[in-house]
């Protein structure tokens, strides 16, 4: 069989133009030159095709062939995804290392999923059962944490005429489905899905469950829901990556897809070395057992960076379809947008703002809309969710730039990192005045039901105090502390405690890094007791704030974060102690 091919007529960086391509389809994968570099058709014009190449193009020139593959850029889905580390187009980095050593070579073709490994397939359907798309045929224990569900691929349905259990490779046939038209579909555990098309679901729901991250400022003040979309913009050094990694480590999603898109090589190495060591606080198993890593560092080819977020989100959707809660971290989406800008510039498209293509907004929206809490396809009414958290790296920390603005339009949670807080070594450096969450109403039911009746009012009061603090601080700066009334000083004292003892959290301290919702509630309750109890105490002008600062119970509040989860009577006692101590000052 002779392969269909065209001929290169122009090479400019990652963009190659080839003629004789009238059979090419949009977004079809092609192999460029006899080195077989991977590329994707992104523009068709007569019989000329513009191809973005996912590898370096040095040494390639006009006259060389371009081979068509007939397939659109797809990811392989099946058991073996978890614990893998891929590049932007789903080539396992370990296999690339085997093929070309420590430096990444070109034209390496390796399968995304191991073909030889055998998995124990346990059918959940029997011969003669009728199944439709999305129905679970059987399960494979992929890691100790995740049971991988083998689902009927899209657009296939009918009666099961064969089902095979036991040790199978991903290419072995595990079931045969006889369609209504008599066509026999052979089903393997390996399936493919084009990365630019969202996977199908049976309908979206409003996300109402909070995604519990264990980071206090996120859970209590600016909650994200399972199935929601959030963004973390911030200048360099403010802690985007640490925040993303902390959420990836501790959040209560069952599967994590972490996309390192155009970031530092050493950072990815850090993740690679740390995740197999760290234990998931919810299950006690190594974090790697529930994680898929996609690493396309800043010096790896720019076009593959563009593809990497889609590769990641398609894998994430696949696990969502099994009925899992999945979280995807993309660090950083600015690099993704820049990759788009670079390709757009080379295609000589009319630029929009700051040289970004005019379709930046729709692409960004399309990406974040793939998040959601969904009813999965299939007859067993599974529900799954996909939460997307994108880091944004605005140049100079200027949030008015196009990538941030387009992201803010489609995400409902904004965790704004602040360089000033980082400089003062307040971490996580999330600014409590500018950040917001539009899911607070959605998740309030969970808090009041599962944590405590008054948790929402407590949170709202704390937010109010922080807002008032910023106003009062301005007054203090202008005219000094003496101008404030005792009540206002009480606000300042409480807000300071909220900032230093509640919001400040050390991501590297084993106890402090993760706080359960209930502990968050109790910590805040003990701190807010200063304010509530102080209300009736500080009404006279002569009130001595130094006495309040010197109360021994205040030291206990400073240390409240070290109290272990579950010691609720300690917290309860502490709250009473705070109240009594403050009332005694009257």
């Amino acid at each position, binding site marked *: 069989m002779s392969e269909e091919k065209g001929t290169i007529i122009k090479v400019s960086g990652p963009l190659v133009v080839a003629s004789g391509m009238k059979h090419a389809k949009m977004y079809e994968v092609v192999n460029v030159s006899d080195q077989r570099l991977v590329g994707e058709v992104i523009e068709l014009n007569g019989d000329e095709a513009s191809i973005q190449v996912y590898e370096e*193009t*040095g040494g*390639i*020139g006009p006259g060389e062939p371009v081979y068509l593959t007939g397939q659109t850029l797809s990811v392989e889905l099946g058991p073996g995804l978890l614990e893998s580390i891929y590049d932007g187009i789903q080539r396992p980095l370990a296999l690339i290392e085997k093929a070309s050593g420590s430096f990444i070579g070109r034209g390496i073709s390796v399968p995304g999923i191991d073909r030889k490994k055998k998995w124990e397939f346990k059918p959940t359907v029997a011969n003669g059962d009728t199944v439709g798309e999305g129905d679970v045929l059987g399960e494979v224990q992929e890691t100790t944490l995740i049971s991988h569900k083998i689902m009927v691929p899209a657009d296939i349905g009918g009666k099961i005429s064969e089902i095979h259990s036991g040790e199978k490779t991903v290419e072995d046939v595990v079931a045969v489905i006889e369609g209504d038209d008599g066509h026999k579909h052979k089903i393997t555990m390996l399936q493919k899905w084009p990365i630019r098309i969202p996977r199908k679901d049976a309908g979206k729901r409003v996300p109402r469950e909070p995604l519990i991250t264990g980071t206090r400022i996120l859970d209590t003040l600016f909650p994200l829901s399972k199935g929601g979309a959030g963004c973390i913009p911030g200048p360099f050094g403010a802690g985007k990556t640490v925040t993303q990694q902390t959420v990836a480590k501790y959040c209560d999603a069952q599967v994590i897809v972490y996309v390192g898109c155009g970031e530092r090589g*050493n950072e990815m*190495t850090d993740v690679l070395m740390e995740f197999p060591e760290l234990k998931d606080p919810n299950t006690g198993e190594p974090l790697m057992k529930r994680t898929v890593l996609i690493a396309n560092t800043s010096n790896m080819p720019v076009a593959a960076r563009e593809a990497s977020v889609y590769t990641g989100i398609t894998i994430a959707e696949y696990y969502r379809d099994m009925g899992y809660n999945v979280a995807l971290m993309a660090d950083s989406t600015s690099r993704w947008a820049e990759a788009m800008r670079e390709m757009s*510039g080379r295609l000589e498209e009319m*630029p929009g703002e700051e040289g970004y293509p005019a379709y930046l907004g729709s692409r960004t929206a399309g990406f974040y809309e793939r998040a959601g809490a969904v009813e999965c396809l299939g007859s067993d009414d599974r529900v799954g969710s996909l939460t997307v958290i994108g880091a944004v790296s605005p140049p100079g920390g200027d949030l008015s730039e196009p990538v941030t603005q387009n992201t803010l339009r489609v995400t409902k949670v904004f965790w704004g990192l602040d360089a000033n807080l980082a400089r003062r070594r307040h971490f996580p450096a999330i600014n409590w005045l500018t950040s917001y969450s539009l899911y607070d109403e959605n998740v309030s039911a969970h808090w009041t039901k599962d944590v405590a009746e008054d948790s929402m009012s407590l949170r709202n009061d704390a937010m109010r105090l922080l807002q008032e603090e910023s106003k009062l601080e301005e007054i203090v700066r202008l005219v000094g502390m003496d101008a404030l009334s005792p009540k206002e000083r009480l606000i300042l004292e409480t807000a300071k405690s909220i900032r230093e003892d509640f919001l400040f959290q050390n991501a590297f301290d084993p106890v402090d890094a993760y706080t359960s919702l209930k502990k968050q509630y109790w910590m805040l309750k003990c701190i807010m007791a200063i304010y509530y109890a102080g209300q009736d105490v500080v009404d006279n002008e002569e009130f001595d704030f130094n006495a309040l600062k010197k109360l021994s119970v205040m030291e206990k509040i400073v240390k409240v974060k070290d109290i272990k989860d579950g010691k609720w009577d300690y917290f309860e006692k502490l709250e009473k102690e705070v109240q009594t101590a403050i009332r005694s000052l009257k």
Partner: protein
Amino acid sequence: MQKEYKSVTSIAGPLLVVEGVEGVKYEELVEIKMPGEKGVRLGKVLEAAEGRALVQLFESPQGAVTEGAKARFLGETMKLGVSIDMLGRVFNGSGKPTDGRPEIIPEKRLDISGAAINPYSRDYPNDFFQTGISTIDALNTLVRGQKLPIFSGSGLPHNRMAAQIARQAKVKDGSDFAVVFAAMGVTFEEAQFFQSEFEKTGAIEKAVLFLNTADDPVVERIAIPRLALTTAEYLAYEKDMHVLVVLTDLTNYAEALREVSAARKEVPGRRGYPGYLYTDLATIYERAGRIKGKNGSITQIPILTMPEDDITHPIPDLTGYITEGQIVMSRELHRKGIYPPVDVLPSLSRLKDKGIGEGKTREDHSGVMNQLYASYARGNDVRELAVILGEAALDETDRAYMKFAVAFEDKFIRQGEHEDRDIEDSLNLGWELLKILPKAELKRVKEEHIEKYMK
């Protein structure tokens, strides 16, 4: 199959179009010979289209003509011949020796653009690298395989500091060590300063210098960091050396990139810099690192001058997003006559935590570092307060902090240009200064360390 074409049809700045060509490869090298000239000018293909090649000259287009010019395509991308004999030598931006000694005999020829390190093959940098400068070693510790830029401004002594680092740098376990130094678009005097500085102190024996002065061709500046890093990769991964690469000044590099981009009529990004500036800088900075199973390492100290001392300018901004921290120079300290004027507070080394402590530097390092940092920050706040309210309004503790801040700048930050402080000395000096503060204020250091080290 080398063909010569006489069909140069246009020249614009460093760019030149050759028509009617066949079989040209992207990034291939080109030799251009002008009529009546002896030598050839070197360039590379920026865009290869059917029958037409866009060539970027590495040399000045001065005196170039279209009529009679001959272009010869060499069929290979730009390579650098490397050898261990490069140590002790000085080269220009096209890899030719300029120290009057003969050309080296290359052991092998390597592609200068290099390939990306597979993140899976990287080893995490966690070994201490001593520069002999207290503000770096003790507070913003550099580790092997890290890239830590110096953000400076025009008129600040970053070149002296760079030379000092290159002179004093050492790895403590006595492994083989080398410095690769690349200067882009520096003035003749600066180039002279570096060269003589290296020669005078004998540091040149274990150094390779690449110098491109301000009047050398602009496009050579684009090649020079790659030449330096290719040399460094050879020394590190094939000769097992720990290599420190000092690049100065990346601002000139970015300017050169902008110049070429503008000549190509590309759509500009922020402030006229090309949209791919981030990617391009990353291909330089990301070549720092360590590789599993190899003994050597590449540590980078790129130096850049921030236009108008503006840290949000695209060059420092994009750099900061790629590198693992930054050392910021302060004009204020410089005015106070303090050398090296390292602004401790905004400076940061992201990888320090894994390179310090027992077995790496000293057990008390982390504590002392945090204590010095916090105390200096507080001292600075107090000084500002004193300006508004007057010193009389300060209490005793605050006055101690103020005294500490002054002493810290005068003794700890200030350091002689030829003063090579061992890490132990730097830490001891830190303890010495902490004595100024009341003992109750030393909350970040361990009690046992106070007893052991505060003498």
